[in-house]
């Protein structure tokens, strides 16, 4: 028996444990273990709330096309007594109208007819392909690493704007929950992967490109990466070789989807220590935080923000403007006001991209401009830092600056906040006013011009990029 006991003792393992977070006012944020719920859990979530949802079947179909994932923290923030109208329910749960009626019927019928898994999967895949799953020519942003005998394209890096390089680490290919409007939905269903296996290419590319000052770690959500992965990215960047790298941005929704990541998770202390070390080397870390609605600003979120700011991180906030979630000036004004109150910097209001369930969420540019302007009017100048409404499209970030009447014509005044070619940055141009337009490609140049000033150059750029990639192969 003793022998058995000593043998059993040899098998013991220990893990880092989560720790509660004690706030400055004595309030304690208890750890909420991360537990994900997926498509086949939708019915159980409703059941646990005592709800018989009339659209359950449709939601389950939509969730096959657009990936669904939620966690307990978000479930607890939803007002289940009025869930149909709850912005966080709209943000995370599939809605029947995200597919066209005939698309829904087609899949419903296949299920009724007991078609095979493969047949249904094929039909679902076709549906996804119809939803412009790779918007804004993202693949053309992949840079080429030049080597004497073997130049190659990097799958998990993007270099669109001269100063900023994006990195998609393989451990950041998912999020703590999925937004229903996600423009990278194809990444979560195993298609159109942008991912780096490790940090080798990133560091090699940055060494070759001294013009880059910012690295944006994105995904998915890099908030899902463990502290040791962050260390593998950041530690080398503290060496003299990388003096040109001044800023690290982390594009994340963890502050609202899983704020415990920065407070009570087992490696939260190690993550913050890693950030602090980097900042103490004279570099800047900016958390590019995705906030969609002020209802997401819970106590754990506020405390996570405080903790990140205490070590010197800045938090800049951004979100797209989406019907049913935040298409109201009051929502943006309240959200920006709260963000500023807690020390965050409103950074961008984006327009819904031309991908996925855009038809469900889209807000016309004219209405977005109105909401943006009205929200700003409700706030002090401190909250006027958000740029927008902005379209992240192939040629660059195009902001709708205003609507004016010029030379007898109603026009949108547009401006490149960033340009695929640096020379386009800050260029102002005009499009015919169109009350219904929701994206750049629906706009026509004003004043009888045949095309916008950048279009010919953009075509040339894409062509030359294609040739460069071809030469590498």
């Amino acid at each position, binding site marked *: 028996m003793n022998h*058995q006991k000593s*043998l*059993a003792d*040899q*098998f*013991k*393992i*220990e*893990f880092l444990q989560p720790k509660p977070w004690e706030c400055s006012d004595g309030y304690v944020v208890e750890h909420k*273990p*991360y537990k*994900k719920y*997926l*498509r*086949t859990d939708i019915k159980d979530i409703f059941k646990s709330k005592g709800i018989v949802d009339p659209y359950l079947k449709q939601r389950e179909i939509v969730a096959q096309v657009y*990936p669904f*994932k939620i966690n307990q923290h978000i479930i607890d923030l939803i007002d289940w007594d009025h869930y149909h109208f709850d912005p966080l329910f709209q943000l995370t749960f599939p809605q029947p109208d995200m597919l066209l009626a005939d698309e829904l019927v087609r899949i419903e019928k296949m299920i009724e007819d007991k078609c095979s*898994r*493969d047949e249904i*999967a094929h039909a679902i895949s076709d549906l996804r392909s119809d939803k412009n799953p790779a918007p804004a020519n993202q693949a053309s942003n992949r840079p080429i690493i030049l080597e004497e005998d073997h130049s190659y394209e990097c799958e998990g890096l993007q270099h669109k704007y001269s100063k900023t390089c994006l990195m998609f680490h*393989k*451990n950041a*290919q*998912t999020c703590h929950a999925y937004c229903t409007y996600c423009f990278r939905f194809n990444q*979560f*269903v*195993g*298609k159109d992967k942008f*991912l780096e296996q490790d940090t080798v290419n990133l560091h090699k590319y940055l060494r070759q490109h001294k013009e880059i000052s910012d690295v944006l770690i994105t995904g*998915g959500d890099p908030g*899902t*990466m*463990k502290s040791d992965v962050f260390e593998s990215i950041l530690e080398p960047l503290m060496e003299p070789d990388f003096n040109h790298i001044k800023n690290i941005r982390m594009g994340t929704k963890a502050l609202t989807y899983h704020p415990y990541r920065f407070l009570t998770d*087992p490696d939260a202390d190690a993550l913050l220590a890693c950030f602090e070390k980097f900042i103490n080397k004279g570099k800047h870390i900016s958390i590019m935080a995705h906030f969609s609605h002020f209802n997401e600003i819970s106590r754990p979120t506020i405390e996570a923000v405080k903790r990140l700011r205490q070590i010197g991180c800045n938090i800049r906030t951004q979100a797209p403007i989406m019907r049913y979630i935040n298409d109201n000036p009051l929502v943006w004004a309240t959200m920006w006001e709260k963000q500023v109150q807690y020390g965050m910097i409103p950074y961008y209001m984006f327009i819904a991209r031309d991908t996925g369930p855009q038809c469900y969420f889209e807000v016309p540019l004219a209405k977005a401009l109105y909401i943006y302007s009205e929200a700003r009017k409700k706030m002090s100048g401190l909250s006027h830092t958000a740029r927008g409404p902005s379209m992240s499209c192939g040629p660059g970030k195009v902001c709708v600056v205003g609507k004016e009447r010029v030379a007898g014509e109603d026009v949108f005044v547009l401006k490149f906040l960033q340009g695929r070619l640096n020379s386009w940055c800050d260029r102002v141009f005009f499009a015919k006013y169109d009350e219904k337009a929701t994206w750049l490609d629906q706009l026509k140049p004003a004043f009888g011009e045949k095309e916008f000033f950048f279009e010919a150059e953009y075509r040339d750029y894409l062509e030359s990029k294609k040739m460069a990639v071809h030469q590498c192969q």
Partner: protein
Amino acid sequence: MSVMVSLREINEQTTTHYDIAPELNLFIQSSEWAKPIQELFLKFLSSHHDHAQRLNMLFSSTDLLAQCVPIITYNEVLESFIIIYSDKTTTPPEPGEPGSVLSYFRSYGYTEKVLCSDCYGQLSCSSCAIEIHNGTPENRVPREEEYDMLDIDNEKPATSFTRLSCQTIVGSTPLLLTIRKPVA
């Protein structure tokens, strides 16, 4: 406690006879491992009596098995065997589902090189696929979403034995696994 040993090492080592518990012998020989792999594993036990003794005890004592479930794996890429004596008195919380095969691999120090997981066990890829060639996990039937991910793997097309290690919960019986090579 765990061990990893390459086939090359096994072939180089001298073996001496050691009685293998009939339960363990049957478990290996009734598995879906190819015969040469089964033989090499038995050869490994003949050259590592300490592991043979441990496994013998676990396979013949239900009391011990409640505390420790062995996960015996053949990694085709590394051409190595890995034995993890998984501590069942505690549950590794991550990556993947608590108590998953992947969570045990990571808890015992095995990195991406041994068992890859691109999405850190979030059921967003199929990189951590394994073949269960004997034994029964706690969750025998994969959830639909696991099938979705297995379906898209062109490098390692799923077989009837394939599961994602991030979703496969270690149960109360030993597991015998294979980590496959991608098809050329």
